[in-house]
């Protein structure tokens, strides 16, 4: 027997401990014997799934899976791209994939060595490797039988039970966790009501979840982050080890304790740098002022580089290293900012967070490590200061919706404290624009727009400002929705951005002696809401916002207003719209005012219909035209 076989032997021995044994499965290759309730609307059908997590000790766990599923039609194509992740920490040990046609004949087989591999991550270091295979499907249904084993060198993140995806139906699916008796397992079912059967196996306990005959559900656009979107069960061990560092995750406090140990001693700067920062903030008194100066220094002199070094993405480089290199990842830069603030006597804490506009806040009652980002918090008696340290453009103290509206875990000397980050407000994302249009008798003209923006709009406008001219022009047309200008100028003037656009034809179109003008010279709103009105999942916009437009159109002599859109006002608990149009005869100017507000970015599923209808109304108003006639 070669040495290579030994790991498998161990693997077999572990399995003698199991609470359930795999029973022989009958597979219906032509799907004929499957119940219609399961088949209806399914593009993928899991005929049998057995997933197992066997924890041997804190530093060793094995995940194995046998999954037999049929892809019914082209809609299920994505399930034929099989991709498995492997890192130094989670090692893909073995894989065997067989493909069967409708008659049950095996048409292809792949082993790990047959798979393509691709490094992932933009960063400097191997973050891991995807092994993947694109299973050929000359016709449907096609059935895939895949078995694989992943070895875990730690237990901070146990694989959970991910039950099914949109369009997928389940005939039978089992998930077993085998945990040594001395360890405490916590679990949490999401989007499904399911409980495990617990068996005492002597040295270990078995937890078995079973699901049978689940029909498929529909994909809903704009829903909560993937992690929390579908039926699944999270597993957490109260004690864990991560890259050899043992810790406790029974409470947020204990997890923060573990994290804080990883940061010990890393936030110290050499004396000359301490002096440098002291000198830099000389003359400022408040924490806020000092932090503002140092934050500006950080933004001008440091840059974000993805380097997930050290232990599994949780331990940063030292502040001294970051100081020498002037680059770092989110942990490194936040830790550096903390060190620099410490040098001038301002106390701050690293805050670990799950970053994404549609992520759910971490649950105070269920500590689990689902974080992917680090920011910095400077505690204040009122309104603590939060800093995003990876951005060269973010405004001081403004987080944005990727990290607002949720809970961050502050890493303090006394352990972790889960605290809410600021709530997003509409006013923090504002787009205020004033357009002056001078129309000539030949329909040509100039548009002068001046705009002030904050938050997400400011990011967008700042981005466009820095673009090259032709890219800028494309952004003006495709992103902002102006007509194609013949010439233009875009420039920043203090807090304002001025946009001058020259057009051969200002109107949308002309027919006979009439010209038809848009109520404002760009598209204020274009997004069409997802069609499903009766959603099951909440809907997330990127951010709440205020959009205020005032437009003046000066008509040339000999032109008269034939028709103006009607003023409108409509609203609901989440959004408001109001518009007004009038013609000032004395200076031959048409005035148009539109205000659109989205008050919160998170829309509960039950109210989605309301919000959808609201924005459909807005789109209709966008199609209104001002009709002007040559007298």
């Amino acid at each position, binding site marked *: 027997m070669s040495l290579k076989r030994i790991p498998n032997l161990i693997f077999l021995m572990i399995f003698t401990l199991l609470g359930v044994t795999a029973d022989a499965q009958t597979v219906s290759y032509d799907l004929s014997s499957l119940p219609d309730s399961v088949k209806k609307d399914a593009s993928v059908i899991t005929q049998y799934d057995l997933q197992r997590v066997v924890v041997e000790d804190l530093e060793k766990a094995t995940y194995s899976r046998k999954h037999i599923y049929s892809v019914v039609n082209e809609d299920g194509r994505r399930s034929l791209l099989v991709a498995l992740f492997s890192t130094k920490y989670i090692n893909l040990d073995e894989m065997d994939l067989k493909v069967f046609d409708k008659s049950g004949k095996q048409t292809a087989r792949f082993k790990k060595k047959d798979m393509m591999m691709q490094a992932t991550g933009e960063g*400097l270091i191997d973050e891991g490797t995807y092994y993947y295979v694109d299973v050929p499907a000359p016709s449907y249904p096609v059935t895939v039988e895949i078995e694989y084993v992943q070895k875990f060198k730690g237990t901070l993140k146990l694989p959970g039970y991910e039950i099914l995806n949109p369009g997928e139906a389940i005939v039978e699916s089992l998930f077993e966790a085998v945990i040594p008796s001395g360890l405490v397992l916590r679990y949490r079912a999401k989007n499904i009501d399911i409980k495990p059967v617990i068996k005492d196996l002597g040295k270990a306990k078995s937890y078995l979840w079973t699901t049978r005959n689940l029909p498929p559900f529909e994909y809903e656009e704009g829903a909560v982050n993937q992690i929390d979107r579908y039926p699944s069960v999270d597993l957490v061990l109260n004690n864990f080890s991560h890259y050899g560092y043992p810790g406790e995750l029974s409470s947020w406090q204990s997890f923060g304790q573990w994290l804080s140990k990883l940061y010990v001693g890393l936030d110290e700067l050499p004396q000359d740098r301490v002096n440098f920062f002291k000198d830099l903030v000389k003359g400022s008194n408040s924490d806020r002022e000092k932090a503002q100066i140092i934050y500006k220094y950080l933004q001008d002199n440091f840059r974000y580089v993805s380097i997930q070094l050290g232990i599994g993405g949780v331990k940063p480089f030292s502040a001294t290293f970051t100081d020498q290199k002037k680059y770092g990842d989110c942990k490194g830069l936040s830790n550096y900012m903390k060190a620099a603030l410490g040098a001038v006597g301002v106390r701050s804490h690293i805050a670990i967070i799950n970053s994404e506009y549609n992520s759910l806040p971490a649950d105070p009652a269920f500590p689990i490590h689902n974080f992917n980002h680090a920011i910095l918090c400077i505690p204040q008696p009122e309104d603590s200061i939060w800093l995003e340290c990876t951005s060269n453009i973010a405004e001081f103290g403004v987080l944005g919706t990727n990290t607002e509206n949720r809970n961050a875990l502050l890493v303090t000397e006394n352990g972790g404290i889960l605290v809410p980050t600021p709530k997003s407000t509409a006013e923090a994302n504002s787009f205020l624009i004033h357009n002056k249009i001078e129309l000539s008798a030949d329909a040509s003209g100039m548009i002068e727009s001046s705009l002030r923006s904050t938050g997400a709009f400011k990011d967008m406008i700042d981005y466009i400002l820095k673009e090259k001219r032709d890219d800028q022009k494309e952004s003006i047309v495709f992103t902002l929705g102006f007509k*194609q200008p013949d010439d233009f100028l875009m420039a920043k003037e203090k807090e304002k951005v001025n946009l001058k656009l020259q057009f051969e034809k200002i109107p949308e179109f002309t027919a*006979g002696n009439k010209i038809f003008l848009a109520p404002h010279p760009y598209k204020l709103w274009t997004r069409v809401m997802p069609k499903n009105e009766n959603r099951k999942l909440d809907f997330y916009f990127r951010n709440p916002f205020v959009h205020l437009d005032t437009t003046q159109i000066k008509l040339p002599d000999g032109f008269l207003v034939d028709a103006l859109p009607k003023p409108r006002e409509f609203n609901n608990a989440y959004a408001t719209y109001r518009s007004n149009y009038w013609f000032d005869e004395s200076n031959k100017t048409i005035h148009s005012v539109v205000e659109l507000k989205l008050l919160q970015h998170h829309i509960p599923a039950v109210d989605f219909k309301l919000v959808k209808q609201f924005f459909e109304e807005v789109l209709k108003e966008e199609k209104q035209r001002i009709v002007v006639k040559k007298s």
Partner: protein
Amino acid sequence: MRKSLLFLLFALLVIHIKAQKVKDTEIPPFGTVDKADLELTQCSFDPEAEAMILVEDGELAYIDGIGIVLEKRVRIKILKKEGLDRADIHLRYSTSDKDQSIRDVVAQTYNLDPSGKVVITKVDKKQIFDKSINKRVAEKVFTFPEVKVGSIIEYKYKHNGIGLINWYFQHSIPVKVSRYVLDFPDYIQMRNTPFCSRKYERKEESKGARVAQSYLMKEIPGFRNESNVINEEAYMDRLETTISAYKEASGLWKNRNINWLQVIRFLMEDEDFGIQLKRDIPRTTDLDLELAQVKDDYSRMKTIHAYVRKNMAWNEYYGIWALDGVKAAWKDKKGTAGEINLILVNLLRNAGLDAKPVLVSTHENGMVNATDAGTYDYPGFNQFNKVLAHVTIGGKVYVLDGSEKETPTHLIPRDVLMTEGLVIEKIDTGEWGWVTLWDPNETYKEVFVLNGHVEADGKVKVKEDITSIDYSRLRKIELARKGEKEFKERFMGVDDPNLQIDSVTFDNKDSDSLPFVQHIQFTETINGTGDYLFLSVNKFTGLEKNPFIADTRQADVFFGANQSYLITGNVFLPEGYEWDAVPKNLRMIMPDTSISITRISQVSNDRLSMRITIDFKKPFFSVQEYGAFHEFYKQLFDILNEQYVIKKKARP
């Protein structure tokens, strides 16, 4: 797969002298930066650039016992925050080629300190990482310390075993000076072909038994990403190199250049190409039966084409060779593009058709240079990445690809349109040679016929029939077969809540060449202001947004095929409504008549009849023509977006 006519050229030679360094005053040495460059805030010849390459210097040398080594140095100036990413360096090398390695990486950052002194910060060797990308490729990865706007970064390295490479003077960011030196023993003669749209300098220097040729370009603006480009690299300034001759021990020069005749002869005699054309493909009785049913040559060709497509799966490898032999591929029912199409040619010939292999280079692979047949070491066939079947029936040429499933037999495959192909045949037949893969009558053609009835409540019910012919059919058919849902999302994505699609049905979805017809019925609540309603007839045409907004252009515009669109139909009004003045009838044509649009509208009582035709008579629009083209496109989309106005009649 790279094949040479003679593999072991360098093994035959004895080389003693090490590569020499070429000095050039234009190129500052590593480590010496000008203060002025550190104070620079803008690139003078490309003022919008976020960063610029101050120096790119490569020296390719043949070194005894090591092979071909590239010593390369790059110096970059960071001009804006957006340019900071340029400080992350990824140097790729092949791991499947065991002789390749990247060594001696040295990198450092330059900044000015407050007193105006140049400060150098080195990249720590420990912070240079090896990263495996996949089974064949790895990279050296590192990032520079102390980088901010204004910094200069510089790195150099040796890439051993790299082989002969083309040198790109142009990049996405501007280049102040770029030099490529080829340093070879004097018994090797290089043939270097510059593809440069700007001025370049060439120098040659002999020292001892070596010759160094250097090519230098200055002030090359960055290359912007543009849509509708046949192949970006074809438009970038570059140098292509080959070895054209070497001196034998006897002192006589041995010419390495070859001509296309030699290439063709070699191919015809090669085991993996020409010999494969004479293989009898076994077990084709089912094909014989099918062929017995059809009489004319075109049908025979079509039958064989379909048969190969049905029976052979493409393994996604390009190439012109049948390395495992056509018989083996046939047995596995799977093969490279080369294997499949050599099988196709075989079967076509066996059926008595005039079929020959034609070497092609897909748009993605690059433009073919028909004037360069290459050398013994790198023969001209390396320019091609596919072989197709070239069939002549009654004077008409057909180009068939058996490795691709959708293109009908009568159409030239899309990915080689307007390229040069090389037909391969025995020399003595005289039937070999160059062909342009193009037929002006095979177009991207689409007809939209609308029939609408406006109802009293201001809604319009429309039946629209879209007929997609040839290349437009090809563009749509694959997605239509995948499912109605995807098709609707892609081609009928509606960004208008007023518009509701009532039904979509397809005709000829499963036909292999008939026009693909889409019947759409939709109801639209017509937008209106006051007594006016506005109706657009530009629906589901794919002509809603002008893609040519940019004022400048670096690469020719390429559409693939000639195009023709017709939007026509009638719309009827109910009682109480009338047509207001309709947009004027017009015809607009490019000065060289290459594009034209005609619009005719006519109202008679309650009926509007309209007809818009757009015709493109050529697929290419050169950079020189872009000004007129850009203006024409602006007007074109203005016309397409004009709407018909309906007026509520005043109540008596």
